[in-house]
């Protein structure tokens, strides 16, 4: 299922129209806009702990287990060979992505950053393969509370039109080494939160 890079063609109707193709094109436009089985959208989350080295941007979900997928109409979460939470775009367009991620507070005054890394693939018509940009950054310093995770949320639209093969990777950066927990749902303040990564096509662009 999914759009699979089949972009809608908006038909023009004329007097005496008898083309079923045009009606089907219009129907596909509607499906592309409102049908979750066609419109590219996904929700994945991390099912494994991810070790985070200090002062290094780390791809989230690159642990030993494959990402857990709530839904993924266009198959974007399955394009990375190494288990990862990264999305490999299948259908061209402008995408909104969202993430929540957190770490057990190592100590007070550590910095935690989350954000997305866009990387152009070989089919990108505007940027050379491997071009990248970080976007949607959210960052704050942890406080001196104990026993609580530091959880951040962020959302942004990718600053460029994505083409098939482009990759959007949720990432995290901390000033001290730590381990992102999988969701063990064990308490209100710690171990209950896991990484979520959602995205959807917002516009075809121009």
């Amino acid at each position, binding site marked *: 299922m999914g759009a699979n890079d089949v972009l809608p063609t908006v038909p023009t109707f004329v007097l005496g129209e008898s083309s079923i193709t045009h009606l089907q094109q219009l129907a596909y436009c509607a499906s592309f806009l409102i049908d979750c089985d066609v419109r590219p959208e996904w929700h994945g989350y991390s099912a494994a702990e991810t070790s985070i080295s200090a002062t290094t941007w780390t791809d989230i979900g690159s642990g030993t287990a494959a990402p857990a997928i709530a839904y993924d109409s266009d198959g974007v979460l399955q394009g990375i060979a190494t288990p990862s939470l990264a999305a490999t775009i299948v259908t061209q367009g402008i995408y909104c992505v969202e993430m929540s991620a957190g770490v057990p507070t190592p100590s007070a005054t550590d910095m935690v950053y989350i954000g997305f890394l866009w990387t152009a693939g070989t089919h990108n018509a505007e940027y050379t393969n491997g071009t990248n940009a970080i*976007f949607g950054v959210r960052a704050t310093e942890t406080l001196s509370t104990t026993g609580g995770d530091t959880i951040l949320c962020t*959302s942004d639209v990718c600053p460029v039109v994505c083409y098939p093969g482009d990759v959007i990777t949720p990432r995290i950066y901390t000033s001290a080494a730590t381990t992102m927990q999988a969701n063990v749902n064990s308490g209100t303040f710690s171990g209950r939160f896991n990484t979520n990564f959602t995205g959807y096509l917002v516009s075809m662009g121009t």
Partner: protein
Amino acid sequence: MIVPTLTAMPAGYVAQPADMNALSTAATFLLKRPISRVHAGTAQTITSAGGYVAFNTKDYDIDGMWSSGSNARLTVQTPGWYKFRLGITGGSVPFNVAIASITGANNPSGNNVTSAWRWGGWAYTATTNAAANLQGLWPYYLYSGDALAVWAQNASSSITLVAGPNGASTGTTGNGGSFFGLEWISS
């Protein structure tokens, strides 16, 4: 853009090309809806009195909401309900961000009326860059000419907003930089 108008087609009615093309126009509008994203490509300083954040670089702007000469706001061209997304990256001091609307001449409330702050964000740091990020549906219907603007402030210190983005950063300076965007949601 012009918000599409659709007419009802009762039973027995023979659909005319104009009726069908109106559906096509609506599809085109939704597939390429008004959306913008801009970012701050250069550093700027916000004094302790607070101030609007300037965004001097356009990523895309399908409906002409951004202007280089008035880059501390996004001005709605197509009326409707909008979703905003923004992130502000500052350095070394904690700060608050908020968003307000400024009416244009088409708004029944009158021209140049600034709303109360709606939505707020906060980022804490005492050492290095921190970034506040917020998004949501703006609570007021926006008319053509209305604008949204982002405010940042630390009441006891100036804030240096860093330039960005800087690619796949290996550190924290710059990162994605400050960004702001609007998306048309519904009429």
